[in-house]
């Protein structure tokens, strides 16, 4: 295994985040704090509790997921798209490095950044509301798996996109609506029966539900089903990336 290659890709991706610290770490924290102010304080003061959990506390897992998903995708997609855009990808393609090693470098760095952002948001939330985590190990498992699987998804978008518009279109037009409609700010039993059924086709519901369960033991679907769905998504992303590298899709002619 080309450990040196993984090390330098990971290091330089992390360095890029550090050099753009405002955009990488501060910006998601400010956005999340604003959500707390608007939904937690302003609107939350009119909604007392959801399933016995104060509304300001209830939205914490959803807000974390919102940030994790968008940041994982943005970090990973940009990480691989930019070398493609500038042409510097030739160096990676001509290096003695396998697709697994490329993934460990790029996706590993993107997932690490998202994980750090997740922890910072959790700490930020602690300033606004009293937080208790019922199942810390489950919470960490969901956190890590979400970071990895959505960084992989972002990596796929970065490989697929051949211009900046395509790079933005899926995060903006697909992921953001799915997260907002996936129960970030409500439970699905607040919806009409028809919409409850429709919502179950949204994969983000399972993520948020499982993650929320690890905090408050409150969920829309069983935690096992949530974990299963995360693993299925992870496997799907891995297979897709493997196929992209094997076929050279958008990488090799």
């Amino acid at each position, binding site marked *: 295994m*080309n*450990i*040196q*290659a993984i*090390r*330098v*890709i990971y290091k*330089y991706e992390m*360095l890029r985040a550090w*050099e753009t610290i405002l955009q990488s770490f501060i910006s998601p924290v400010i956005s999340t704090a604003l959500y707390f102010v608007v939904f937690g304080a302003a609107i939350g003061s009119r909604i007392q509790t959801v399933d016995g959990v104060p509304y300001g506390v209830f939205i914490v897992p959803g807000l974390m997921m919102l940030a994790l998903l968008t940041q994982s995708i943005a970090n990973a997609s940009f990480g691989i798209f930019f070398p493609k855009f*500038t*042409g*510097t990808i*030739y*160096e*990676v*393609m*001509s*290096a*003695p*490095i396998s697709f697994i090693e490329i993934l460990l470098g790029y996706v590993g760095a993107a997932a690490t950044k998202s994980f750090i952002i997740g922890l910072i948001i959790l700490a930020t939330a602690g300033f606004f509301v009293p937080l208790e985590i019922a199942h810390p190990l489950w919470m960490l498992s969901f956190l890590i798996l979400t970071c990895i699987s959505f960084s992989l998804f972002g990596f796929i978008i970065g490989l697929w996109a051949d211009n900046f518009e395509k790079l933005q279109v899926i995060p903006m037009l697909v992921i953001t609506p799915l997260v907002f409609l996936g129960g970030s700010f409500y439970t699905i039993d607040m919806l009409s029966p028809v919409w409850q059924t429709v919502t179950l086709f949204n994969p983000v519901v399972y993520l948020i539900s499982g993650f929320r369960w690890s905090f408050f033991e409150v969920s829309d679907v069983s935690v096992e089903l949530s974990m299963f769905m995360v693993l299925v998504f992870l496997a799907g992303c891995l297979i897709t990336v493997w196929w992209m590298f094997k076929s*050279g899709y958008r990488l*090799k*002619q």
Partner: protein
Amino acid sequence: MQPIISISNLSKTYASGHRALKDVSLDIKAGEILALLGPNGAGKTTLISIICGIVNPTSGSVRVSGYDIISDYRKTRSMIGLVPQELTLGAFETVWNTLCFSRGLFGKKPDSAYLEQLLKDLSLWEKKDSELMALSGGMKRRVLIGKALSHQPSVLFLDEPTAGVDVNLRKDMWKIVRHLRETGVTIILTTHYIEEAEEIADRVAVINNGELLLVDNKDTLMHKLGKRQLVIELEKPVTAIPAALSAWKLDLSTDGYFLSYTYDPLKAQTGIAELLQALSKAKLLLRDVNTSQSSLEEIFINLVNTK
């Protein structure tokens, strides 16, 4: 001696249907400088890209030091450095960081002493902490060479290394290439500048429309295919070539002062002595006589146009 690179029946057809390479076979000797000449779209970059792993071949095989570029890609790629045609560099990294990145990418542990020497050899040591976007085009080209050499490859591909650089920098590049060859690196360069191949290559391969037209030692090639020209300057101008000289198929300059005779230097009888006698008989006084060898460029143009 086993070639360091052995290309066998290599073909490449792109998804668009364009056949970029047609059954190319070529052996490259260790330690040589091979110039790959060809017009735009001839297939030079495709050939290099396949060997380096950037483009998939349609058929055929390539071996580097006996290893297959697909099944043993880790071994073959570790031996190869590539300087691409375009100035493809990041913007915000420093020279030092980008070299460290390249070295690591090829599986080599950090070696500050080697990279320092490399930057000094490339006259970039003073710029090691500069951001890449702050460098001139020539310096960026050197950085690309530095990146390609950062993992100490035994084969270096230079794809149009002096495209768009000024004369002085081009000569500097040639110096660098010669120095690399002295250290044992095999160099394959593609170029549009025939002058470049003429100046530094040991062997020349000519490629056109995806086909390898010839590969030969540069001097042999110029000797075999080159023509010599005898230019005779007359004391007084003439309006037409005298009939007595028609056997030599001379060309007359527009001002009437110069007669040109093209001959094959490999023939036993060049016809020069007879021509000079005929000139004397025709009462034409000579002011000066000069001979010149046709350049590689003329040979190249002739080859590409005729095949």
